[in-house]
């Protein structure tokens, strides 16, 4: 066997920072909540009808901090307008710009009409559902289109992102029902109604992630390096322990235990864990995926400055504040127009 000893390499930066992961996380929650709302108003799943209004309001709330994360991350934030002027059909971001904008617009109209109890909400909800799915799909396609990175370059990624977006939306609805039923107007039975769906979604996540990593391990050197990086390397803690064990397997087990399901205090624990899991799914794929070097023998540098984490915290907090504020504001707004 020939020995190969790397001597001098340039260490590159991981291309995508934390804020991109935060954007994917918040946009995913919003899209997930929106789809929960329209599952009764558009798709006729009558059992979850009580969730339609509060879920739509929460989806709106998370629509605000999501694009802010994108904007703050740009090297030239004031040039975001270029995204609307120049359209590149081969760029996922070009499509995403319009999907995000149209999703935001339809979500506002839909929620307003829904809270007013108008029939037209159904049409807007149908259009919004299309954009919500598009939003989750494009965030996955964004990564999947990068052919050089085996972790990203898979058709499973957009599907995984849609499934995890739904899972995070359901998790948030469950948490709202348990901890802030008054503020969010989320009915107490939300967690129970969505229990089966949630269990299947998390199960699907486990299956997809396992299959993806099995294929990577069986693939080329770059794929194997990715698996090593995530299972035994620098990403072991945030991927294997936090995302997979704490954020995926543990909630799945807890969801399957009847005593946890019917316990007043423990019932929202799987929701909290799985939302952590979805955040770390985004974080590990976006930031960790970029750490796997393409041409260097040194792991790409990705340590984020403290400011980035502070902005992350602030954006998530803004989402939560709006979750509490939007329903009340909607109620007042609708009443004033009545």
């Amino acid at each position: 066997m020939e020995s190969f000893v790397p001597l001098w390499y340039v260490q590159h930066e991981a291309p995508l920072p934390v804020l991109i992961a935060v954007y994917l996380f918040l946009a995913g929650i919003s899209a997930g909540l929106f789809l929960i709302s329209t599952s009764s108003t558009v798709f006729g799943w009558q059992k979850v009808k009580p969730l339609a209004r509060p879920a739509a309001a929460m989806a709106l709330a998370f629509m605000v901090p999501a694009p802010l994360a994108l904007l703050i991350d740009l090297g030239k934030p004031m040039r975001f307008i270029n995204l609307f002027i120049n359209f590149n059909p081969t760029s996922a971001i070009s499509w995403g710009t319009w999907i995000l904008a149209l999703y935001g617009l339809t979500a506002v109209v839909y929620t307003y009409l829904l809270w007013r109890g108008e029939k037209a909400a159904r049409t807007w909800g149908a259009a919004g559902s299309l954009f919500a799915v598009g939003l989750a799909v494009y965030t996955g396609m964004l990564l999947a289109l990068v052919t050089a990175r085996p972790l990203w370059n898979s058709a499973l990624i957009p599907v995984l992102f849609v499934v995890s977006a739904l899972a995070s939306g359901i998790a948030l609805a469950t948490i709202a029902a348990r901890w802030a039923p008054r503020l969010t107007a989320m009915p107490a039975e939300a967690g129970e109604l969505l229990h089966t769906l949630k269990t299947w979604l998390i199960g699907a996540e486990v299956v997809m992630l396992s299959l993806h990593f099995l294929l990577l391990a069986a693939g080329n050197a770059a794929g194997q390096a990715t698996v090593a990086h995530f299972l035994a390397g620098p990403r072991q803690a945030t991927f294997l322990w936090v995302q997979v064990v704490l954020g995926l397997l543990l909630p799945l087990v807890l969801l399957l235990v009847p005593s946890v399901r019917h316990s007043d205090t423990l019932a929202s624990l799987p929701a909290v864990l799985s939302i952590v899991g979805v955040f770390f799914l985004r974080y590990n794929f976006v930031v960790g995926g970029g750490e796997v070097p393409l041409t260097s023998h040194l792991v790409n540098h990705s340590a984020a400055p403290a400011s980035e984490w502070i902005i992350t915290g602030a954006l998530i907090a803004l989402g939560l504040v709006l979750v509490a504020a939007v329903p009340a504001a909607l109620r007042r707004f609708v009443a004033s127009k009545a």
Partner: protein
Amino acid sequence: MGDTTKRYVMVIDLRKCVTCHACTVVCKAENGVPAGFFRTWVEEADMGIYPNVTRIKLPRLCNHCTNAPCENVCPVKATYKAEGGVVVVDEEKCIGCRYCIAACPYDARYINPETGTADKCTFCLHRVEAGLEPACVSTCISHSRYFGDLNDPESVVSQLLRTNDFQVMRSDLGTAPSVFYIGLNEHMASKNVHVLRGRR
């Protein structure tokens, strides 16, 4: 879109490179590349078991791909092909979203902290337009780097590629690079990324 009758390429004869890193230095000086970033750099590795040991060298730069992933993913079309198929960034258009950096298989791009926009090797187009060679080519002490128009059969690059075996990096990705190597080691061409080290 620039002059498409030309195709500017670089041919790097690795048999001649002595890893003096003069190209790295002159590129930084010529293009004002900020500290911590490189438009061109030279990688080194040792291969073999004593006494049969070889020092492998690999000068690196943007590959100016004919099918450029960075150009495909740019949402504002700031990355485009200039004269001779040279891939360049319109500094006035770029929004600094980093998507091109993520898409580049050759680690050739970075965000310039001074401008907030994506930055990379331009084949020193400003020099080429003035009738000069790229700075790294003109400074190379061992005449390892050559630059020219591949569509001109009399150019030195055409002659070199006609008379020598040559390789490109990551040919499996179908990017059709415009940087050709003579004597490229297969370990370096596709990068056996099993050997990873953390740093910083």
